[in-house]
């Protein structure tokens, strides 16, 4: 029988291959699920069965007796895995595992009971980020109704350069409306919205011409950003390549997969460089690898001083941003 660390090394190999189900199975054996959090775990008596990757992607809870990895974040030489074990009696155990990696070896592994602690441990490098810069987005006491239906009431929000803010709330809470207000697509009934700097807007539904290719979209958006034809295509291809889009694909937009359309959508929002990035659930259709890569890019944009506003309904995203604005019937809460 190998040591717990051997298993964790194998777990990391599984992570890098995107085989989260395998990771879940390994961690099920290696973590002290019932013990106090914050210690290295190696209790081999816990048995669990990994959930299928697809079920995790859909956000399905672990079945009784199963272990699932809901989220995985890689940041520099550290990784964070959000692991859930659900017992047959319905009890649910969660651990946030932070591993430090050297090459393909795990140098250390710690499990935490709260995401905050794990994020603090994972985000050591975030402490080196520059302080938030100037105010880029300021929303004060905004209200918006569609007919008799009140969508937003007394909502306020601020985002500074280098910050990432998530907007959450129930369906119909006005998340997309608030983002539309920031983009200037929607006019507020009351209150004020101020946005400073070049805005990149990525709508939930890709606003694309079905019969144009990715390169043609880049060419079209280029002049709007002051880019020449070749410059726009070159810069756009670079962005698309970073997002995992098949660069050079001459397919028309209607023939692209949902994820590929969304990557093009995102690249068009970023083209030419932006100060404020407004993203409305930008990763719909992304596979897991693209989703993880997306959040790495968010971190990079923040480091570059971009103010990022993300509409999301995924709780796992909330740990990845600086602040959360939750829209409720009473207004906004943080």
């Amino acid at each position, binding site marked *: 029988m190998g040591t717990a660390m051997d298993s964790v090394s194998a777990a990391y190999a599984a992570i890098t291959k995107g085989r989260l189900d395998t990771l879940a199975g390994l961690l099920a054996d290696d973590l002290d699920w019932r013990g106090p959090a914050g210690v290295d775990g190696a209790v081999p008596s816990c048995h669990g069965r990994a959930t299928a990757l697809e079920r995790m992607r859909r956000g399905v809870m672990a079945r009784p007796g199963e272990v699932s990895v809901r989220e995985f974040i890689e940041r520099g030489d550290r990784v964070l895995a959000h692991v859930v074990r659900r017992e047959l009696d319905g009890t649910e155990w969660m651990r946030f595992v932070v591993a430090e990696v050297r090459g393909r070896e795990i140098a250390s592994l710690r499990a935490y009971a709260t995401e905050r602690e794990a994020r603090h441990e994972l985000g050591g490098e975030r402490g080196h980020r520059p302080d938030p810069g100037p105010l880029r987005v300021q929303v004060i006491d905004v209200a918006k109704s569609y007919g008799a239906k009140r969508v937003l009431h007394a909502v306020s929000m601020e985002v500074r350069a280098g910050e990432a803010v998530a907007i959450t709330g129930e369906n119909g809470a006005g998340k997309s409306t608030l983002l539309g207000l920031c983009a200037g*697509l929607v006019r507020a*009934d*009351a209150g004020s919205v101020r946005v400073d700097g070049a805005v990149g807007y990525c709508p939930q539904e890709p606003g694309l011409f079905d019969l144009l290719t990715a390169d043609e979209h880049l*060419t079209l958006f280029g002049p709007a*950003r002051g880019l020449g034809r070749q410059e726009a295509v070159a810069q756009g291809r670079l962005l698309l390549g970073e997002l995992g889009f098949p660069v050079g694909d001459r397919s*028309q937009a209607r023939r692209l997969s949902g994820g590929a359309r969304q990557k093009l959508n995102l690249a068009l929002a970023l083209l030419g460089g932006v100060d404020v990035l407004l993203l409305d659930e930008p990763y719909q259709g992304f596979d897991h690898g693209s989703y993880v890569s997306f959040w790495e890019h968010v971190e990079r944009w923040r480091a570059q001083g971009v103010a990022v506003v993300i509409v999301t309904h995924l709780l796992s995203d909330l740990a990845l941003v600086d602040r959360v604005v939750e829209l409720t019937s009473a207004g906004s809460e943080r």
Partner: protein
Amino acid sequence: MRGARILVPAEMTGRELSRRRVTLALLTLLPLAFYAALAGHAQRAAQTGGIAMAFSVAGASIFTALTARPVDRRLVLAGYRPHELVLARLALLELFGLVVAAVFSVVMLLGTSPSDPLALVGGVVGVAVISVPFGLAVGALAPHDLEGVLILIGVVGIQLTLQSTQTLSTLLPFWGPQRLMQHAVDGTVPIGAAVPVGVAYTLALLALGALLMTRSAPRRAVAAAR
């Protein structure tokens, strides 16, 4: 760079339109079918076929405007000005309209033998020129393509049923070209104010389309909305 802000959207509109081959074929065949159906009545055929050409050019303009609407908001947000996009589409669609008009003029000159060929060509070209701002205005006004098509069918259909000498016809956008075509095949109807009225209608429709598009464009979120 300023030229590119009109030329590039115009080029992409052309690429998009040229890939709708079936739609383009149907839009071109439709007025020819109207003309062919009245082949035995040369005078009536020229007017009907000429006005029916509005279905082609205005139809293409409506679909172009409606297809572009969700993208236009992003393009304006990215930095285009609404009037640049209007000018780009206008240029491309007018070019398309003139090509259709050229084909149709040849067909009608050969099939109708008008007494004033220049007036006939002028009428056909007039339909093409007015159809573009008409289609762009309807595309900016109509919430969906169904409503847009119904407006198109309504306006062009009524114009088709009327003679240019009838009062109601003078209020419709294609009265000027209709008058020119009726004069070309009849010879007894004076041209009168057909040309200035056609030009005025073109400019008014263009202004309306640009105004509607500008009003729906994103606005920089800096002003208080109290």
